C-alpha cells in the first residue's frame, strides 16, 4: 500500500485512513483531522499541527468546530457532517491558520457505519 497515488490527498480512501498508524499519518504531506461522531478530535496529524501552529496533544479530545475551527462551523462543513450520511467531497476554502487567511482545499470524508469522519487539509 505504499503507492503515492493511493495515499494522495485526492485518492486516499476512508478505509485506508482508518488503518494507518500514527507515524504513517504524520508522514502524509497534508493535514488529517479525524473526528468522532460528536465532533471530538481523535486524530490530528503532524502536518495539520504544523499548519495550525498547534500540538496534537492540545487539540485531541477537544470539540473541533467549537475550539479550533469555528470558521468551519457552518453549512459548508460542520452542517454537512450532520446532514449527510455519506460524503466524499473536495471543496475550496479559506482557513485562518495561525490567524492568516489561507486558501486551502478540504476533503470531507464520511461513510455509513464508520464512527469516525475525516477532514483532509491541503495548502
Amino acid at each position, binding site marked *: 500500500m505504499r503507492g503515492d497515488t493511493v495515499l494522495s490527498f485526492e485518492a486516499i480512501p476512508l478505509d485506508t485512513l482508518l488503518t494507518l498508524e500514527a507515524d504513517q499519518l504524520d508522514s502524509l504531506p497534508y493535514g488529517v483531522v479525524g473526528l468522532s461522531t460528536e465532533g471530538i478530535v481523535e486524530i490530528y496529524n503532524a502536518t495539520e499541527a504544523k499548519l495550525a501552529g498547534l500540538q496534537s496533544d492540545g487539540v485531541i479530545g477537544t470539540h473541533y468546530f467549537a475550539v479550533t475551527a469555528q470558521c468551519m462551523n457552518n453549512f459548508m462543513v460542520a452542517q454537512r457532517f450532520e446532514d449527510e450520511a455519506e460524503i466524499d467531497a473536495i471543496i475550496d*476554502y479559506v482557513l485562518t491558520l495561525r490567524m492568516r487567511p489561507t*486558501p486551502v482545499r478540504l476533503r470531507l470524508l464520511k461513510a455509513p457505519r464508520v464512527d469516525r469522519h475525516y477532514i483532509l487539509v491541503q495548502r
Partner: protein
Amino acid sequence: MTTDLETENMALLQFLYACPAGLVEFSAAGAIGMVNPAAMGLLMPIAGKPFVINMFDVMDTCAPELRNLVQQFAPPQGTVCDGHRIVTGRGERSTILACSIVKLTQDRYVATLADVTEQVARERRLKQAETWFASLLDGVDDVAVLSLDANGCIDAVTPSTTRQTGFTEAELLGKPFEWFDRSDRASAMPPTGEAIAVAQRDGWYLHEGWHALANGGRYWCQRLVAVREESAGAAARYTLVIRAVTRQGRDTADLRRMLTRDHLTGASNRAHFFETAERQRVRALQDRGSLALVVLDVDHFKRVNDEHGHAAGDVVLREVAQRCEAELRPEDIFARLGGEEFVVLLPGISLMEASAVAERLRASLVREPIDAGGIQLCITASFGCSALDTDPTASLAGLLAAADGALYKAKRAGRDRVAVSNADQAAA
C-alpha cells in the same frame, strides 16, 4: 522537545482560535492581514463564498460606510467606530453585527466583530420600558390622558390634553387616536392597529413619534397605550397617555440622523429601510393598497473608482442620492443598500407608476454630467421595479429579489434603462 516559547505560542494560538469574538487586522486599503476563526465565520456568509481577503470588499454589500469611516478618520491612531451596527442580509433573517475599529498606525487597523442580533431585539423592548419609566420621574404636568374605546377611538379626554395639543374636546372625541400621527421619513409610525393589538397582547404599548397640534404644527412625544381593567364581560378599553418630550434639541436630531442615515450619501441606511419597508408592506396588505420598490445600480461604477479614485466615486454616489431624493415625495424612502446600489420604497404606488418614477430618476441622472472635482462624469444607472399590486403575497425579500431580477434585465439590455418584474404579464 518544545521550548517554553513554543508552548506559550501554542497557547496563544489556541486562545485566538477559540475566542468567541471576531478579530480582524487589516490595512488602510482593507487587505486582511490577520483574522481569527470567529471573524471568518461571520464574514463568510456576508461574502457568500469562503474567499475573504479584503474587509471593505466583503462589507461593501451591507456596510459600505466602513471604508469611508476609516478613510475619514484623520488622527494617527484611535477608535474609528465603537459598536457600529451592521445589518447583513437582504430582508429575511438579517444578522446584526456590532463592529468596532481601532486605528493603530496609518496602515494598520484592528476590528472586532460580534453577532448581536438577539441582543438588539431584547434591547429594543427594554429601551422602550426604560424611557417610559424615566419619564415618569420628571414633571408629570405635561402628560395628556385620553380614554379609548375598544376600537381605539377617543371617548374622553382630560383638560391637559386640550392644553397640550390645542385641539378642543369636540375635535378629539370619536376620532381614532392614530389620526393625530404626523410621521415623516425619519420616524415612521407603526401601522394602524398595531398599538392596540400589542396592548391587547402585552397589556401595554409604547412608542415615540410626532403628534399633531391644532395649529397645524406637530410635537415629539412618547405615547403609552395601556389596557384598562373593565368589569367581566365588557370589551377592553384603553388609556392613552401622551407625554410631550421637550428635549427635542439638536442632539436628538443628530442622533436620529446618525441612526437612520447612510454616512456617505445621506440616503436612508439599510436598517432604516428594512424596518420601514416591512412596516409599510404589512400596512399595504391590511389596506389592500400597493407598495413598490425600485432598485437602482449605478452603471460601470467600478470604472469610476478605478479611473478617477474613490473620492470621485464618493462624489458620484452623493450626487446620485441628491438628484434622486429631489424627485421623490416626502413619504418615499431612498436608501443605500450597499456599494453603488440604492433602493426606493414607494408606498401606495403600483408597478406601472413605479416604472414612471424610475424613468424620472433615470432622466435626472443623464440630464447633466456630474462634476467630480473638475472632472465631468456622465453617469447613468439601471433600474428594476417590483410592486405588491402584481404580486400581493410577496414577502419583502421576495419583492427585493423581483426588483433585483428586473434590474439584471435592464443591465443585460444595455444599461441606462428601466425594467419591471414579470414583464411578460405587464406587456400583455
